[in-house]
């Protein structure tokens, strides 16, 4: 922790309950003093998440990555898998819906429902973090890796295949055929609302039961809300225990029970209604399906409950993944609360795509003022008529006298460096950049461009910091690791390895 981060503490510490916004603002303004080199930002008041310690601990058997869509959840899961394997663990990564590129980055053209070994893992238990900033890795316990033998396997959840396998494993051949041929089943298993969550839980339980790996890293489905993944077993349970399923299976039996009289009216109306609503053929499909699945439902329930308990067990660690954006962090905060309510073991927050600057002692405001200054020099020289637009006494003097004659060639255009092949011209909010492709570009113009870029970067950093401080003030105890934004996408193991280093040292 640097001096700068300590000073942010005073900002957020007092704002924990109220006025978090104001506190965040104060923290953001103190942040510019952190001056950490290498473009990384410091983790404010939150404790740091020791990723390597987590990966090296043989007691860690399952890591669940959860969070909103588009925050790099799957990439994080893959990078953790690579790092854990290279630190000597035998890992399987279960992804839900990886981008093609991600599968390719692990050297696998397409992932399927069977774990495939990833080649190119640098075994040997040595710390893979040879990057410059790998030095301060928390818990670089190379001793825990036990001299290599690490392996990485990867797979992608195939919902339908997983569902089919359950049916085949738990029903006799004839019944299994009947279920697999049922139109209702075919739609259900192809991935309608909820199925993905059940099957992810089911697959996790299967992998854990096989005991072939000592660490399972799971990516969670891109759920409508973070809740779905955790709710899967419970919802399935309440459905299976519910009256409704019994009604579907044997309407007469339930309707005839004593003490259910108030339901009788609804019941007769209901079966009629259902038949009207769904059409008799669909209702029949559903009933056949439920009847055929009857013997299996108990098993479903038991396994879902077991997986749920497995998630609560000490060997499991949840990582909430987010990007420093309001939506993603709001979801993250929500997930943190939800995990606590369900007594699920939260290891910490992975904050992806965080921006930093090596020149953060120069604020956005000063950079912009300086840029205008330099550009104004050109205007003053070129057309005195525009001189009156700005008060020369405001801010630093424009030094117009120092601008050489070549400054006049900097004709102002609103054209940005837009690519010719773009179908639509890039629309920008700025109208100040000069035509930089001209040969006669002045040092002032180059410098002004550099300063404007820097101002933009500083604005992004400030915005990210405010967003993050809001989260930290709500959940000051959640350990955080930050992953600096990469300029491009991940294409190979080296890319995943680089992210792993950032995860461990962020």
């Amino acid at each position, binding site marked *: 922790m640097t001096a700068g981060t300590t000073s942010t503490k005073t900002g957020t510490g007092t704002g924990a309950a109220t006025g978090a916004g104001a506190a965040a603002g104060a923290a953001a303004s103190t942040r510019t003093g952190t001056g950490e080199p290498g473009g990384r930002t410091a983790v404010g008041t939150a404790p740091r998440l020791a990723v390597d310690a987590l990966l090296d601990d043989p007691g860690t058997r399952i890591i669940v990555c959860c969070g909103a*869509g*588009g925050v790099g959840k799957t990439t994080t899961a893959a990078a953790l898998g690579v790092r854990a394997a290279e630190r000597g663990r035998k890992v399987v990564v279960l992804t839900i*819906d990886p*981008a093609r*590129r991600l599968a390719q980055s692990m050297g696998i053209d397409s992932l399927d429902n069977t774990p495939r070994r990833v080649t190119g893992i640098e075994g040997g238990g040595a710390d893979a973090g040879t990057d410059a900033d790998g030095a301060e890795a928390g818990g670089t316990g190379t001793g825990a890796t036990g001299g290599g033998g690490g392996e990485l396997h990867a797979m992608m959840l195939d919902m339908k295949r997983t569902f089919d396998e359950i049916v085949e494993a738990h029903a006799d051949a004839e019944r299994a055929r009947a279920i697999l041929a049922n139109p*209702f089943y075919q*739609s259900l298993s*192809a*991935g*309608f*609302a*909820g199925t993905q969550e059940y099957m992810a839980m089911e697959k996790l339980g299967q992998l854990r039961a096989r005991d072939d790996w000592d660490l399972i890293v799971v990516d969670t489905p*891109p759920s*409508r*809300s973070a809740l779905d993944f955790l709710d899967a077993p419970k919802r399935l349970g*309440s*459905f299976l225990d*519910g009256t*409704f*399923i019994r*009604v579907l299976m044997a309407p007469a039996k339930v309707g005839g029970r004593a003490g259910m009289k108030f*339901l009788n009216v*609804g*019941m007769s*109306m209901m079966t009629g*209604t259902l038949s009207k*609503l*769904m*059409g008799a053929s669909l209702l029949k499909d559903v009933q056949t399906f439920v009847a055929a699945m009857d013997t299996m439902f108990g098993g479903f329930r038991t396994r879902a409950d077991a997986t749920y308990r497995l998630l609560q067990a000490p060997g499991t660690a949840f990582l909430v993944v987010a990007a420093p954006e*309001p*939506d993603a962090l*709001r979801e993250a905060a929500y997930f943190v609360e939800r995990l606590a309510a369900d007594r699920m073991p939260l290891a910490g927050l992975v904050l992806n795509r965080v921006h930093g*600057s*090596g*020149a953060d002692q120069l604020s956005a405001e000063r950079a912009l003022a*300086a840029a205008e200054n*330099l550009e104004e020099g050109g205007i003053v020289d070129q057309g005195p008529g525009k001189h009156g637009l700005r008060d020369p006494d405001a801010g630093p003097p424009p030094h117009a006298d120092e601008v050489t004659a070549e400054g006049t060639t900097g004709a102002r255009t609103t054209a940005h*460096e*837009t*690519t010719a*092949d*773009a*179908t*639509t011209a890039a*629309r*920008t*909010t700025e109208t100040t950049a000069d035509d*930089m492709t001209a040969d006669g570009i002045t*040092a002032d113009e*180059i*410098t*002004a*461009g*550099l*300063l404007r*870029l*820097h101002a933009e*970067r500083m604005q992004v950093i400030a915005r990210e910091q405010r967003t993050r401080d809001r989260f930290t003030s709500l959940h000051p105890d959640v350990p955080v690791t930050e992953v600096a934004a990469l*300029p*491009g996408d991940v294409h190979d193991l080296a890319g995943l390895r680089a992210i792993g280093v950032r995860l461990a040292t962020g």
Partner: protein
Amino acid sequence: MRTQWLRSMAVSRLQVVSGKGGTGKTTVAAALALALAREGRRTLLVEVEGRQGIAQLFGTEALPYEERKIAVAPGGGEVHALAIDAERALLDYLQMFYKLGSAGRALKKLGAIDFATTIAPGLRDVLLTGKACEAVRRKDKAGRFVYDHVVMDAPPTGRITRFLNVNDEVAGLARFGPIHNQAQAVMSVLKSPQTAVHLVTLLEEMPVQETADGIAELREAGLPVGRVVVNKVRPHHLDEETLRAAAGERRGEVAQALARAGLGGARRGGLAERLVDPLLEQAAEHAGRVELEREQRAVLAGLGLPTYELPLLGAGMDLAGLYELATELRKQGDE
């Protein structure tokens, strides 16, 4: 272009906005609803994923299952919003078609509503799309459409085709009866020129790839693809050639310029001199990104769809920013 706007934007009364997670589809949907609410028109902004993203964007309290006005557009148009709740939509639907009062409650007690909205294949999606289509078709007593446009903040690209096509699937499952008829009616709206499905993307590899895949899927399913909306476009400042020069023979000049601008001494070890390296490093990252964006633009151009580009707002997203984006959409739509 004017006619194109009229054709693709004004005629499509249901505008579905999808996109990979994190691309800002909710923001774009809201800006589009504002943009379409011009000259006294009225739009309905619909949310289907229960995330209350619209309420957060407009800074209002959580939206109930009820249409309410949330914004007035420049020129007097109105934006109304609705967060569709599948369970309530089903009860509404039952009430509307079957006058089920107490039976509806009994169904709920039994867990039938739960079953229908969470477990039964596709019913949830049928209800959500069905409600949106109902709003598209709704007319007032004078026979005019209640809403000129309905804008839907839809599920992400990976699920959009299945979501919109669910009625086809259900119509196949329930081969007759009211659900079948309802599903058919919804599909007749979704597959007509009354609907346009827009995909929001960033100029990054994965979102662009997903957009291309999504468009292929939509086209295959016969769903009308509208536009690609490139969101969070950043201005470009310096090209690579200039940067090379700045990092090389003109490095000293840059330091001097920084000093002239009042940022410290240009001599070795001086404040301005020490700024040069980090500034150049940032600029190199920028140039690299510009190059990546150029590649991604080319991929998008290959899709052969009209495109909108919305700028990244430096100050972050707020209500003022939303109006700014809406103005931008109108401007680009009018060209």
